């Protein structure tokens, strides 16, 4: 796997130890998540495999973000089985998920506007030098990494010390993606990562997803854009009102069917006709 990574110019924080392609890394069965009265997930099952891209699709409020937040250790599931590498997983927080090799780009990006790009990039995963209690972080080296990683995604950061609050929405999204790719050791989760991106950056992110898959990582990719999903996905899980409408391999479904499913099976055709076939 190593030579692939290098030939593609991917540098990461850790050399991943990955299982064979197709091996399930995350498996959930009948997962439920309730927030008081609100049932956000009403029994979802899916399998995330090494070297595959699983696209998570569905309308607004379908429960996609809730699902990946559960996988990332933000929420604890109300009921249901959650296995990582075939072992039951109990994440007490996002840090546990990170330690299990899961890196996530959250929909709200989890960035601190007042902090510099570099400090945001390494937040929670600062590399240290020296011996306890004199451990310190080499921020100059960190800035170099940040700058290089941002350049790879197609953003030329003027100054890694500038506050994230001064970045544009798309630039901010790129920092979050570059960060997750850099630290994603085994599983990369992307919650609508391209929603604010320009054409060049979007194709860069899609290329990233292919590269990461080629390295053998598992990817969960949430998007509202069927074309993007179909371009990189190996399997598609469609969520609707907290339930799965099914999981399909790429050869089992075409783009149009997928689109219809994503809209909750509603009559997309009529809507599309009304708008002159533009949807």
């Amino acid at each position, binding site marked *: 796997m190593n030579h692939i990574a290098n030939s593609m110019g991917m*540098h*990461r*924080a*850790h050399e991943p130890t990955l299982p064979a392609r197709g091996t399930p890394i995350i498996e959930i069965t009948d997962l439920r998540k309730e927030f008081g009265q609100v049932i956000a997930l009403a029994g979802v099952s899916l399998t995330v495999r090494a070297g595959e891209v699983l696209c998570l699709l569905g309308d607004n409020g379908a429960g996609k973000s809730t699902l990946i937040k559960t996988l*990332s250790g*933000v929420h604890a599931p109300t009921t249901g089985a959650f296995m990582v590498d075939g072992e039951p997983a109990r994440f007490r*927080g*996002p*840090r546990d998920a*990170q330690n299990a090799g899961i890196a*996530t780009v*959250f929909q*709200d*990006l*989890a*960035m*601190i*506007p*007042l*902090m510099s790009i570099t*400090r945001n990039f*390494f*937040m*929670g*995963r*600062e*590399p*240290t*030098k*020296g011996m306890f209690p004199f*451990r*310190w*972080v*080499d*921020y100059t*080296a*960190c800035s*170099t*990494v940040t*700058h*290089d990683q941002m*350049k790879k995604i197609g953003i*030329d*950061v*003027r*100054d890694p*010390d*500038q*506050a994230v*609050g*001064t*970045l544009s929405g798309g630039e901010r999204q790129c920092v979050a993606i570059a960060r997750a790719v850099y630290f994603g050791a085994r599983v990369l989760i992307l919650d609508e990562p391209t929603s604010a991106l320009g054409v060049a950056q979007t194709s860069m992110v899609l290329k990233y997803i292919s590269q990461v898959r080629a390295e053998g990582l598992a990817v969960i990719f949430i998007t509202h854009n069927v074309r993007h999903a179909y371009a990189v996905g190996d399997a598609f899980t469609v969520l609707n009102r907290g339930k799965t409408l099914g999981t399909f391999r790429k050869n089992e479904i075409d783009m149009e069917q997928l689109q219809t499913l994503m809209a909750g099976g509603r009559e997309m055709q009529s809507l599309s006709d009304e708008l002159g076939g533009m949807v």
Partner: protein
Amino acid sequence: MSIDTTSGPLPGRSSPESPVSRDERLQTTGFLVRLMRRPELGAIGGLIIVGIFFLFTANSAMFTLNGGLTIMNPSAQLGIMAVAVSLLMIGGEFDLSIGSMVAFAGLVFGIFLLEWHFPLIIAVAATLVVAALVGAINGAVVQATRLPSFIVTLAFFFILRGLSLVGLKIVTGGTTQLRGFTEATADSVFTPLFSGFAFSGLFRRLADLGLIELLPDGTPAAPGIPIAVVWFVFFTALATWCLLKTKVGNWIFASGGDARAARNSGVPVDRVKMGLFILTACSAAFVGILTVMDAGSTDAMRGLQKEFQAVIAAVIGGCLLTGGYGSALGAFFGSIIFGIVSIGLSYTTFDSDWFQVFLGVMLLIAVIFNNHLRRKVTGER
């Protein structure tokens, strides 16, 4: 200087053949922009303005070595707390109980030292443990109830002050003052750590060389650097290093900037904030011990209004009330401004009660300036 393997090496840096790639636009970040980005800029500006004001109005005795050290002692007593408060404020929390903690720690220290006859160093350690416990209670209540720390610590502001009054009356049999610390600590080898002057040998030698004026009795006019000042400088350096150079420093900024984002990025926010509450309480207790050792007695009214003064010093030093931004070095300068104004007025012909007016005006200017600065730094619209 080995790279810690648990956190992973930085690829692309370890090998010499990968040159440090730099954006050509990087160099254009001029000195002025970098300076503007420093949160302590306002405090340094304030210090210069205040300095100039007293240069024209105050008696020249203020600008002698002795005058300077007279200013630095109260600055240090406030500043040790203000530095801890600045870390806590950057972490997004407040502690209004530290003024009362100064008095409470004095009582606890007195009980350990004078009633239970602990050796000095044990009494100090035990007092700090008690303070840490109170800080932990503050933190635990804030985290369990999710109430603003402002209101929770306001409760402890009253609780600790009340306990100090009641406790002192019980211990002394009716008064609110406890004496006898000087005698009890006279023969401890650790006493010089908490009272008196440091570098007195050096000052003696400087006096012999004619660099320091001599008093009529032949002793140097400045006997040395007050020990509180040494601690103040040490804690400021430590806090600044922590904030700017360590992992925990980054976690403090992140926790105060946006607790949820920080948590989702793997920062142990609750542990960070708990640590900061404990640190702040301990800093107040430490100041309590220093002032008790300095005066030889403790009083239930010690540390009155110190919580507000520490917050003001931190804010003058560039801390935002909303958290996530600030500097320990700024709080250092903020505290010195405080010392200059509170002591300096007595070197002028002005009434010393102008102090409070001065304070309020400084605070207002600092807050407005910081707010403006933050918008500039973050591009907030």
